[in-house]
């Protein structure tokens, strides 16, 4: 009932938070956290434009030369190309392989369904470094590691289950009767998929793709373990540049960090147009709200 909804906070009203003493404490904790995160990001940003910055609130002078420096020293353009290739390949493969699996999980019950679900959940419950080391070892054995192919294969392991877990509830909420109705109208299986299901799934596919892209860009461990010198993604290059610090000025490293932040923020901001931030982590199975 729309009327019932109107009477509930789920509808129109969005009450202001009312603060009790404990509420103030929580707000203070939150504020402290947010202020520090923002300050951390801003200090990286400032430093990347600082001609020099010691123990003063603001750098003593501004310059853009660290970006040019980073571009040449760290072969930034090569790194960006590799990052884009890895990102595009992982997103494409995990969507093409993951979407049909999500469809099956959303629509069918069959023996061993729980086992299959567990198989897809497991890579998310085990830290990447744990399976990354044996995976890298195995990939080296088959001469797949140390190349772009190896990096893409390794990144599929967390990406594919993520796509499946995001898409399954999305497909579940598409009324199955829509498919049945299309069939009753005489549509073939292929037509049902291409004309009915695919258009309805586009928002979900887009959101899942963008979220996977953000994750691939930030995935350090697997790329680190499987990449050769010529196929580092941005995040790995950033790690190595910190390692080589001493020879290189800190501002150049921060310039690199800013470039990395920009590449992550663009897909993130697009993704946020489609999904709620709480869905960007793992979508938990939840009770359907009334």
């Amino acid at each position, binding site marked *: *009932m*729309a*009327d019932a909804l*109107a009477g509930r906070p789920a509808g129109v009203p969005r009450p202001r938070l009312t603060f009790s003493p404990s509420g103030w404490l929580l707000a203070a904790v939150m504020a402290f956290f947010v202020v520090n995160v923002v300050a951390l990001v801003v200090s990286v940003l400032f430093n990347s434009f600082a001609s020099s910055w010691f123990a003063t609130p603001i750098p003593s002078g501004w310059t853009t030369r660290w970006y040019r420096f980073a571009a040449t020293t760290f072969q930034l353009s090569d790194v960006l190309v590799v990052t884009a290739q890895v990102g595009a390949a992982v997103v494409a493969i995990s969507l093409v392989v993951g979407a049909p699996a999500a469809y099956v999980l959303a629509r069918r019950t069959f023996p061993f369904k729980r086992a299959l679900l567990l198989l897809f959940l497991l890579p998310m419950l085990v830290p990447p470094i744990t399976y990354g080391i044996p995976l890298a070892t195995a990939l080296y054995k088959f001469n797949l590691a140390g190349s772009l192919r190896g990096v893409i294969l390794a990144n599929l392991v967390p990406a594919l289950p993520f796509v499946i877990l995001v898409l399954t509830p999305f497909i579940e909420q598409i009324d199955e009767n829509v498919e049945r109705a299309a069939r009753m109208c005489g549509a073939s299986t292929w037509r049902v998929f291409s004309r009915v299901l695919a258009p309805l799934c586009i928002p979900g596919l887009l959101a899942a793709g963008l979220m996977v892209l953000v994750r691939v860009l930030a995935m350090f461990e697997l790329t680190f373990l499987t990449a050769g010198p010529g196929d580092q993604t941005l995040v790995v290059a950033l790690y190595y540049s910190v390692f080589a610090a001493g020879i290189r000025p800190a501002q150049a490293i921060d310039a690199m960090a800013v470039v990395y932040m920009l590449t992550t923020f663009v897909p993130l901001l697009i993704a946020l147009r489609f999904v709620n931030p709480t869905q960007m982590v793992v979508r938990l199975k939840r009770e359907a709200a*009334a």
Partner: protein
Amino acid sequence: MPTPKVERLRIEGVTKAFGSRLALEGFDLEVAGGEFVALLGPSGCGKSTMLNCLAGLLPLSAGTITLDGERIDGLPPEQRGFGMVFQNYALFPHLSVRRNVAFGLHAAKVAKREISDRVDSALAQVRLADYAGQYPSQLSGGQQQRVAMARAIVLEPALILMDEPLSNLDAQLRTELRTELRRLHQELGLTTIYVTHDQSEALSLADRIVILRQGRSVQVGTPQTVYTEPAGAFVAAFMGYRNLLPAQMKETRGGDATVLLADGQQSLRGRDRTDGAAEALVAAVRPEDLTLHEAAAAPDAGGDNVIPATVAVVEYQGNEVAVSAEAAGGLWLHARTTLRVRPGDQVRVHVPPARVLIFAEDS
């Protein structure tokens, strides 16, 4: 019937705004102890908002609520001592039926022994004694609804609030539980405010009905009053006056009026319920008050106040059929009859003047 715990609930000038939208506007109501009052209206009329304001789940924008002379509108819900039955039951999914019913008694720090006895008797009252150990997810919708009722009545609340408690159930169960609700009310004498959009529920359960429209109450009265004497076209439509024929005033004399229907040719007599100023009118008649005659068999039957029409749709409904017939000027008439008519038949529809109510269109 046991004596009620309250004498008088008084709602005065209650207004509730959501942003710029007024869900309730200057709502007044007095409820006597032991009374069963139904708030009736379509979706979005503000009836659920009123209930949530009463429960303390929504703060008022303006107005007061007093219980036996004491203001309660500032109290949080847990201090009002009202019971509430939610539309979706809102049972605690992690607690057994017994623990669900005992929840309020635990909160009130009632002695263990007494809790056990009172829970048993409440479960017996809703006929769920055998399900005490089950969890809500193991129960059917009707059983969950009974648990929700037991949970509310076990506290013997001053006032019990019900928010469309039967709307999630299928038709047969709804009728069954309706009878049960009425029985519980008679046995326990609980002062009840009941929100519904189903007029038959309100008519069969309530001592008094309040009809809401866009946040205001448009009529308050006993079921008989609102059924036979709706205050306006809106209430009439809600009370089963399915024929609402657009009309203009021809003449009015005493309590009676003669109007011209849509095409301006057909005139109809009825009881004048306008304030005299309105231009656009409607003539409201229930389908069961219309009498059908076959035009060929009885060309003069029914005397005056007759509208000739052509049968268009016939629906079989057991003892009788529901007929939709089209009259001149695109007028549609809905009637019930035992005649064996077929689509295309010419009929004469007789309208007893005493059963026609003439309202202003926007009333």
